[in-house]
């Protein structure tokens, strides 16, 4: 069997590959190495990131290229923007996407707009890696899914991988891309293992992937919800319903063609997005299909999302907050007239 590694290790490998290829690639963030200036640690890192994703990088690349920062997101994300504008190719780690509140100006008004405002006389080859997602019992300020917010900003590319192999190939592409990319890593995926090719390879940003093909309905799912959708699809298969699961992999740019073609084939669309329901990726994709694929549809477009509330701490509530295979089946039963679906 081919080599299986975790989502976290796939990201670690991607950073290594990119850093070996280009000495202008640097990584900066809080405790990305950890233990800075502590003699007793030698060249060891204390943490390698809060989840250990960047462990070991400082040994190979040294503290000039793996920079621990003060807890000052505006400071280092802003610095990464202009380091990028002046010839570096930085990767800034925003530990949790929730902390964007501390550095939104740097992303939204600086990084995203410099090129346009300068009439094309600048490029910002910056990647902001950030952790998102509920299900970790991390409560309202450490569990949000905010890719919709970034998708709304012109000048920002948004990538949301769902598997270890995609994570590695997409991250290498993001680092080598000349635009600013916000790269979302779901914290509950880090330990998930999958087949991952060795060495350097890229997956184009803006190309969706059909994770499962089927003729009866299209499920577009984002990030770890791709796995929820695949579980639901397996259960639907037992009922003779073949769902096609489309993983956009990037929300900006969005592979409109692959989504529209799938809906043309199946005539039914369900979107699964764990973000809050208003102004998110699901509503955006829904608008796309209502606009450009209305004639393909035999049923209303449906969505399974989180409710319009912050992420609750209590496990009893957080489990209800997230999309689930059961919720998907319940909605599919509205799309396809078959009462037995929900009782699988």
């Amino acid at each position: 069997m081919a080599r299986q590694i975790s989502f976290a290790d796939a990201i670690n490998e991607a950073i290594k590959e990119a850093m070996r290829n280009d000495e202008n690639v640097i990584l900066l963030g809080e405790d990305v190495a950890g233990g800075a200036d502590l003699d007793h640690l030698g060249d060891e890192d204390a943490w390698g990131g809060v989840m250990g994703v960047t462990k070991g990088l400082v040994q190979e690349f040294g503290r000039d290229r793996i920079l621990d920062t003060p807890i000052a997101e505006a400071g280092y994300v802003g610095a990464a923007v202009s380091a990028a504008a002046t010839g570096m190719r930085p990767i800034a780690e925003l530990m949790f996407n929730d902390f964007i509140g501390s550095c939104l100006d740097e992303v939204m008004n600086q990084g995203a707009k410099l090129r346009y405002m300068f009439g094309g006389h600048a490029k910002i080859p910056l990647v902001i890696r950030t952790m998102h997602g509920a299900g970790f019992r991390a409560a309202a300020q450490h569990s949000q899914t905010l890719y919709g917010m970034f998708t709304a900003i012109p000048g920002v590319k948004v990538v949301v991988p769902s598997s270890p192999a995609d994570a590695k190939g997409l991250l290498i592409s993001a680092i080598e891309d000349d635009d600013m990319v916000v790269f979302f890593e779901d914290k509950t995926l880090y330990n998930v293992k999958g087949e991952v090719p060795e060495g350097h390879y890229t997956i184009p940003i803006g190309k969706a992937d059909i994770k499962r093909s089927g003729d009866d309905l299209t499920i577009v799912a984002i990030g770890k919800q791709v796995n929820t959708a695949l579980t639901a699809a397996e259960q639907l298969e037992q009922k003779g319903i073949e769902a096609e699961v489309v993983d956009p992999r990037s929300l900006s740019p969005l592979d409109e063609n692959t989504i529209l073609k799938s809906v043309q084939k199946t005539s039914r669309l369900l979107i699964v997005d764990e973000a809050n329901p208003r102004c998110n990726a699901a509503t955006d994709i829904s608008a796309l299909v209502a606009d450009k694929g209305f004639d393909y549809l035999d049923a209303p477009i449906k969505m399974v999302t989180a409710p319009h509330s912050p992420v609750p701490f209590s496990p009893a509530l957080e489990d209800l907050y997230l999309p689930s295979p059961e919720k998907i089946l319940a909605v599919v039963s509205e799309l396809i007239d078959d009462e037995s679906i929900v009782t699988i």
Partner: protein
Amino acid sequence: MRVSEVQQESLTAEKAKWMYQKMVEIRRFEDQVHETFSTGTIPGFVHLYAGEEAVAVGVCSHLDDKDYITSTHRGHGHCIAKGCDLKGMMAEIYGKATGLCKGKGGSMHIADVSKGMLGANGIVGGGFPLATGAGLSAKLRKTGGVAVCFFGDGANNHGTFHEGINQAAIWDLPVIFVAENNGYGESTPFEYASSCKSIADRAAGYNIPGETVDGKDTMAVYEAAQRAVERARNGEGPSLIECVTYRNYGHFEGDAQTYKTQEEREQHLNELDAIIRFREHLLSNNLATEDELHSIDENVRQAVADAKEFAEKSPMPEANQLTTDVYVNYKPGGEE
């Protein structure tokens, strides 16, 4: 610059015993959470305050319910010192319906507004502007109250530190900024991340008093806080107190703590321990007897055991709680 010398009220025996009790409550509570967390029954992650008790208690001993505090991710100690109920806190940490926040917030967001406790906070640096705003509110509403902002050494590099303190200073707000310099922000040493020699030095930039005290010496914290609180209550504006301290556990439970040395850990757990030192202070100054302190120890042990049992036996929140408390008068998704 030192906070202006004000008449020092001497510590009464009653107050001293209350302080000792709160410190022991914090220690026992955190040791219990540490123990239970390792069995897997506590969801999420927790940041324990054990080792830093002298700071929360030394400061909060000058406050009452009309005074506000803002806290951090490491908030259990501040909650206890400000009078939050141990049962309600423990139930919150378990995510139960009987928790102080109905299980919606958890360890990092415990709050009790009725006690002036404006919440632990998951965002580093979140407290500075909040404390400044609470101070503004107390000043304009003429409540006589003050606001205390507890923050870590890591937070002192966040932009909100500078914005919050500057605002409090230009408006002479009744705010006390209390740095808990425990040497590390996560695994990163204070000395690496901060260009200042001490956090107190930064007060000069805002033209307010700033001083550094041994944050494991309860009386030193108590006295510095007394000066700062008086100054605030007298309308003379904010102060900054840096308390040099240490966290006995890791950044969060599960942290291997390789950045600490064995030597420093042992020193802090033993001869530098704040509770041992305060206990000796009480005994040698005849503020309490060995028997009295022993019975406080026993009562606290029982109170924490009761809190744990209460949390364990409490129910989880009902499903309909998921979308309540988002707004006052708008229920997302409509009435069901």
